[in-house]
């Protein structure tokens, strides 16, 4: 599967053969600047992304802990997600996200 990521500076990066288990690990393994401080336990919000509108409804809904955590993320929006909580599944081929401010810090 393939995903498209816009980094904090707006550059478009296509990840062609996503191997990781989650969106966070795919972004990290591509070498993009994502801190993902807690390693994927939904405890830090440094893996915060904005999901392109056409994809938001295709993702599993935001979980309770994820929702609380997003509340402390910088600049939360309607389409905010923690990328460590988005599992890689085949139906997400083409998923497009933007790294939020704070994800690299």
């Amino acid at each position, binding site marked *: 599967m393939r995903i498209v990521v816009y980094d904090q500076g707006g550059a478009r990066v296509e990840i062609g053969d996503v191997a990781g288990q989650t969106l966070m690990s795919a972004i990290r393994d591509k*070498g993009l*600047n994502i801190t993902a401080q807690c390693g994927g336990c939904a405890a830090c919000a440094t893996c915060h992304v904005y999901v392109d509108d056409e994809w938001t409804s295709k993702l599993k809904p935001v979980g309770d802990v994820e929702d609380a955590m997003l509340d402390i993320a910088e600049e939360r929006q309607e389409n905010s997600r923690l990328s460590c909580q988005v599992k890689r599944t085949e139906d997400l081929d083409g998923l497009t996200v933007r790294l939020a401010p704070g994800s690299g*810090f």
Partner: protein
Amino acid sequence: MRKRLLIVGGSYAASELACQARENGYAEDILIVSEEGDLPYHRPPLSKSYLKDASEELMPLRAEAFYRDKAIEVELGARVVAIDGRGNRATLSNGVVIPFDTLALATGARARTLPGLDTCPGNMHCVRSVADARKLRSAISGAEKVVIIGAGFMGLEVASALVRQNKHVTVVEAADRVLARAVSPELSRLLSAIHAQNSVNLITSRKVRPIIGHSGLINRIELDDGSILQADIVVVGVGSHPNLELAQQLELKVGNGIVVDDKSRTSRSNVFAAGDCATFSGQFNLAGIRLESVQNAIDQARVAGNAIAGGDKVYHAVPWFWSDQYESKIQIAGLSGGATYSESRHGEKSDVSVFHFRDDVCVSVESVNRPRDHIAARRLLAGSKEITRRNLQEVDFNISALLKA
């Protein structure tokens, strides 16, 4: 000639410091020297998921491509053995000499060993690096009886991972309660009960003496009340010791760690330090306890990297920490040391939050399986308004409600 930032260490603080210096515009050479063989990786899983599942892989903090893209050079498998502070040169274990302009010490800490043991018997383990965790993981299947010395986070996490693999696990602790240095008595009691329910044999207030057999292995542990524990493997988790040798060579101001200010500057103008090797006292840590957490390593490294690039960010972060034991997610916001009053709230399941106050002001919240309380506490503690006992009583300790107020 180009200038160079030399970073000694290969974990959270080293990686984050390099990255922040670059992101904030530092344009000179950056070199990380780490004695470990792997790129900086997530350490917490080593005593948790890594021991439970033999197929679990090491999780890097950042990919190799990241360091390459940011022109951050990483030299692995090399130890910095000496630093000449007058000539600004570092000598590596492979003999190479590296000049630098700015130096960052991110040397972390190493596991303490048992006093009185001058050899390291083959069946004695600690868990600090992935090399340690690999060695322990490969010894698990052949062992039946496990003795863990020290009921700190590491010891208790290892206990919970191994007892679930049907090992006979005993934890021996010298203090009169588990996690005595890290958490409140309330939380200690709660966690002891959880371990007992899970069939871990927990012994407190006892000192140990390992007995080494003819094979050169520890085959039993004698306690100071005369009782004997049989052991196939022994895991030692009696705390850590900051790696201060290089700081001492440089004659930096050192206490229980390298003393740094709120920009992670040491007592020498071109030397910074961050993470487990450093100590800082500030609003959230008046006593200047050396914190050993991912949060602290990353946040200190951020201000150091920023300062090296000429920025003026200061360290002002609420300490937070987590641990996973069985189905319990333990999360701690703030430090409870020095608290004068505590109050707990239990939920319907085995969830609980313990609120700690110093002179009526909330300074820390410890929670088990209550992530919302933890997150709310972090936000509120970071804010400019104090949270008083009365504030919490008014919302019946539903701390999230205070966020809306």
